[in-house]
């Protein structure tokens, strides 16, 4: 891409104060670059080092090696948190993508009031997990929410008490996560559906293909990159899930819905085991890298091959 670079000859002929002035752009981004560099690299390295130290209530810098990682992986609570991440991540990503795709396809049928539908499905994203988690926790509460309502309507045996059950509470978190995120998937899928080449679709219609077949064979394969982008973003949300659990179940009943991010917080600030908390934070960072590194590599590869074709 061509850019308006200050050409080198003019720089060389300028008096010193103008030459200094030509460094203005660099000087302006420098503070932001340093701050972000610190935030990303130094903070990560710092937290990694703390995880190798014997810090407990306060951070210290006595090196003890990887003992905290060993105790971390022997801790039942962490195993539960990590299992929850897989359970939640799987159901949440697939669920949000399915609901999002369904909504996008429905809205793509030239429905009336498209803007209104979209507003309804996207508003959860504007509101904090603290708010939505709190309200859903009331609705899941058997004594006042959905169960109370349905029993009042006459089905006196109806039971809906997921948040009270160790086995089912995580699915209440999943359901709320899907409720919150599928509007996001819908927005991206809808943008994708609208970008599909209409000539292809018309050609298929002329050949007599029904709309289900057109979606399955032409439209959805054409937006495959969007599926991957949505999946990566949702996986990232899943790995970072924290406030939703705090507001919805406080990690309970017991520790049944603890997620890795909650574990880090609890260890660092409730139990004064900073080093092990830092080790757990490093594991979160590792999980993110497992998602993002392949994705970036794939994106770069795709751009290169697109450039080679074009």
């Amino acid at each position: 891409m061509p850019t308006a670079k200050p050409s080198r000859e003019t720089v060389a002929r300028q008096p010193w104060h103008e030459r200094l002035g030509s460094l203005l752009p660099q000087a302006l981004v420098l503070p932001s670059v340093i701050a972000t560099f610190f935030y990303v690299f130094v903070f990560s390295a710092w937290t990694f080092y703390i995880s190798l130290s014997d810090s407990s209530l306060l951070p210290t810098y006595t090196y003890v090696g990887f003992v905290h990682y060993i105790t971390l992986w022997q801790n039942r609570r962490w195993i539960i948190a990590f299992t929850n991440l897989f359970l939640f991540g799987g159901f949440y990503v697939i669920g949000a993508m399915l609901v999002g795709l369904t909504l996008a396809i429905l809205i793509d049928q030239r429905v009336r009031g498209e803007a209104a539908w979209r507003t309804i499905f996207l508003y959860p994203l504007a509101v904090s997990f603290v708010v939505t988690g709190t309200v859903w926790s009331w609705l899941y509460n058997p004594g006042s929410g959905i169960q109370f309502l349905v029993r009042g309507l006459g089905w006196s045996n109806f039971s809906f008490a997921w948040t009270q059950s160790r086995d089912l509470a995580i699915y209440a978190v999943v359901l709320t996560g899907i409720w919150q995120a599928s509007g996001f998937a819908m927005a991206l899928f809808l943008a994708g559906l609208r970008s599909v080449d209409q000539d292809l679709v018309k050609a298929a219609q002329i050949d007599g293909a029904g709309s289900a077949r057109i979606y399955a064979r032409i439209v959805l394969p054409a937006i495959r990159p969007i599926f991957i982008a949505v999946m990566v973003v949702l996986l990232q949300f899943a790995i970072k899930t924290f406030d939703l659990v705090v507001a919805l179940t406080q990690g309970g009943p017991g520790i049944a819905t603890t997620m890795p991010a909650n574990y880090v917080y609890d260890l660092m600030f409730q139990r004064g085991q900073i080093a092990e908390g830092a080790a757990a934070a490093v594991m979160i960072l590792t999980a993110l890298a497992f998602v993002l590194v392949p994705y970036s590599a794939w994106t770069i590869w795709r751009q290169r091959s697109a450039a080679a074709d074009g």
Partner: protein
Amino acid sequence: MAEATSRGYDPLATSGAWSRVRANVIVYGLLALFAAWYLLPLVVVILNSFRNLPEIAANGLIAFPRSFALNGWFAAWSTYCVGGTCAGIHGQFVNSLKMTIPATLISTALGALNGYVLSKWRFRGSEFLFGCMTLGVFMPGQVALMPWAFILGKLGLTNSTAGLILVHVVQGLSFTTLFCRNYYVNIPDDLIKAARIDGAGFWRIFRKIILPLSPPILIVTVIWQFTGIWNEFLYAVVFTSGREQPITAALVALSTNGTNVRDYDVMSAAVLIGALPPLLIYFFGGRYFVRGLTQGAIK
């Protein structure tokens, strides 16, 4: 955003009138069903903030209101007890404003400047620096907690709004720079070249060419930053306590406090107060909000 424009392709038109009606019933029926699920919490919380407590207790949370009271709102705003002090949550609401507005403006201004330099005044290594800056978008807050705690302590900013502003500005720089740079890249370089030939310098080009073209991206960035910072919970709860807390932390303190759990009228009003600023922004700037979302994800 564009209503379904004339697209030449109408899946419902492919078959006869009868199946068209049937298809319509399915499409609108499903949409209505999903919409009911989506709107349930919002409707419930709005209605309950205007009901009185005995009636909520008798009829449940999901019920047509048979009482009307404003007590919930008054109590939530100015008399309810949060963490030992009984002054409602208006203080924490103000804290959130004091934190969110400066942090949004500073991070957006810096992002615009960075975006301008990284797209129109590239220098050797600037692409690499940009790449490194975007990594900040993915940083999980938990990894930054201990370092921030140390730095805020050294700067004397623990338990203060100023400390949270610093944290949010640094974290936000990656987003704002990414948004602005990707937008400015599409401004033709010839425009900048022509201005340089006319003798315009760095700031003049920024003011006369870049800024007048910027409103769309600046609105997207401001909305994105405002909602993100207002809704943030982890830093809020770790770095502040009591009366210094932003509203998200106060709401959690309120709702996880065992004795408060049943005061649904006050809690509903409190939750709505906490949700109102981002909701208003969303309903009035919705199309910009969606644009930020799609840009942030795809690029």
